[in-house]
């Protein structure tokens, strides 16, 4: 197990190094400059050089690269080009709260409803409950979350006036965005739980448990649910991806000051350092999620023995 984690960590460092290098040079390849060139024309040569020097842009490319990587090792993502002189680190830190809250609420809501729906669908296989769950599952992955968010905003927010339409003012502002994010998660998890549960209910040990004389409920709680829920951990990776893509649009639709809207804004403003910083941030988060899932899976499910291979 230790060796497995070590190998994975080395791989992660290599992956992140390649991602950082690739984004750095991609950003340098971009046409145009992050600054308003027309304003810079008015500056004297000296002032312009000073301006470039502040962002380290006066040096040759490889020096810039080495400096960037050096800072990166120390966890410094550099200065934002657009938000004057703000370090990208503090930009991300200042914006992470709302995104984290939304993500957390969506995962909790998605997991609880998804698991319950999936369970019921499997217990009542081929009944109206099962069909209902399957419809929810198909619709949930099929309706793009930004379409759902727009429709919720129109009906629930504007027409019925139940919840705030936009902005981040009170806790209630987080309700519509959370629902928009959670629907995909519910769909993914309900479907997965249902299939796992159906599989488990066919196993011999369930028959054995019944044969021992255990009641339906005891069999379900003590034998079936436990085994069916373990693999659910494995879809946390896709869940994370769906939350990430969701946050990019949904924070924009609802005007939430989170990192998703920061990312989209920095793309529109050509704020390269922020784009790079967030790319690395998202990638590290994603990679670590996958790693934690794999480790947890190995710990919880003794059938999975990892021997240093992915």
């Amino acid at each position, binding site marked *: 197990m230790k060796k497995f984690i070590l190998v994975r960590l080395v*791989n*992660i460092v*290599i*992956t992140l190094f*390649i*991602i950082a290098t690739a*984004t750095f040079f*991609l950003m340098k*390849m*971009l046409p145009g400059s992050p600054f308003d060139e027309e304003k810079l024309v008015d500056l004297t040569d000296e002032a312009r050089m000073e301006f470039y020097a502040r962002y380290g842009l006066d040096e040759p490319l490889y020096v810039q690269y080495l400096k960037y990587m050096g800072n990166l090792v120390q966890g410094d993502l550099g200065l934002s080009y657009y938000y004057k002189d703000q370090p990208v680190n503090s930009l991300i830190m200042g914006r992470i709260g709302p995104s984290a809250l939304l993500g957390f609420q969506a995962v909790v809501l998605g997991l609880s409803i998804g698991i319950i729906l999936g369970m019921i669908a499997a217990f009542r296989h081929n009944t109206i409950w099962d069909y209902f769950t399957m419809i929810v599952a*198909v*619709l949930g*992955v*099929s*309706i*793009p979350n*930004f*379409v759902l968010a*727009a*429709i919720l*905003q*129109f009906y629930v927010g*504007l027409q019925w006036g139940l919840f705030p339409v936009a902005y981040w003012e009170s806790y209630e502002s987080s309700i519509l965005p959370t629902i928009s994010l959670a629907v995909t998660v519910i769909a993914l998890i309900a479907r997965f739980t249902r299939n796992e549960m*159906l599989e488990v209910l066919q196993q011999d040990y369930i028959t054995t448990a019944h044969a021992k004389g255990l009641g339906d409920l005891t069999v379900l709680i003590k034998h079936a649910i436990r085994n069916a829920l373990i693999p659910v951990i494995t879809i946390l990776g896709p869940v994370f*991806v769906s939350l*990430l*893509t969701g946050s*990019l*649009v949904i924070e*924009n*639709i609802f005007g939430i000051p989170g990192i998703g809207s920061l990312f*989209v804004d920095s*793309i*529109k403003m050509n704020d390269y350092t922020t*784009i790079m910083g967030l*790319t690395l941030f*998202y*990638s590290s988060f*994603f*990679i670590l999620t*996958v790693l934690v899932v794999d480790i947890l899976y190995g710990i919880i499910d003794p059938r999975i023995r990892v021997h240093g291979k*992915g």
Partner: protein
Amino acid sequence: MQDTKQQKKFSDDLFQVVGRREEQSEKINRPNLTGLQDGWLRLKKNKAAIGSLIILLILLVLAIIGPYLSSYSYEQTDYEKVFMEPNSEHWLGTDKFGRDQWTRLWEGTRISLYIAVLAALLDILIGITYGAISGLKGGKVDNFMQRIIEILVGVPNLIIIILLIMIMKPGILTITLAMVITGWVNMARLVRGQIFKLKNQEYILASRALGAKNRRIITSHMLPNTLGIIIINMMFTIPSAIFTEAFLSFIGLGLQEPLASLGVLINDGFRSMRNQFYLLAFPSIVIIGLMVCFNLLADGLRDALDPRLRK
């Protein structure tokens, strides 16, 4: 004692030798079906999948002929008639520039479908080649090729797509390419896994023992047995490509006006939904319809083509 009794009861002339006809016992009574025909027979029983297929065909036909059914073009503006509700002249109303929404909707559907199908086809082409080389070669080559895939899998796809689109100018081809650059990985992994599994099957060994060359093993054993997975994966790729394109257009990184795609239309509709909800409603209905139908069809195909998953 009993034997003799029985013999008396049933005398020999009651029996008749019919013989065992070799050719009859081995005769194949049913027509010989290929894997795909077999899959089609099973798919036909799946009402949801067939319904989806029909709706998809209708949407496809509308996407092809729809723009020609009205007398307007998708970029033709008319500032006298902006924001018109659906009426007999403009069936689905007009937008902020007085452009006919019926024409724009089907033009947009066509572009979205075009991008999605093209991306899926390219994914398959690259994925199969990469996966097959990786799987067949094995050893060091495979190891190296898998490392590359691991790195690509490590980053959320959408981030790569966004970065690529920032470098290249947004357009139909750029969006497709950006999606393909991340999309083929899935296919390559599936094909590699399948080939690894097939490589060690006994019937492949038998085929080799009978003198079959590599080429024959690939074309007549590996390919047919991988085809199901490829089709299923393609059917799941198309809706996710439709989603990605719409997503990019929605955050302003996709196609630019006056071009229409479902994402562009939804973005437009979202901006004016407060007073002109119909601008958002129609493209949303079409995109949801496409996504639901493709997903249901893909589910149906998976049940039909992948016998291991059959319940």
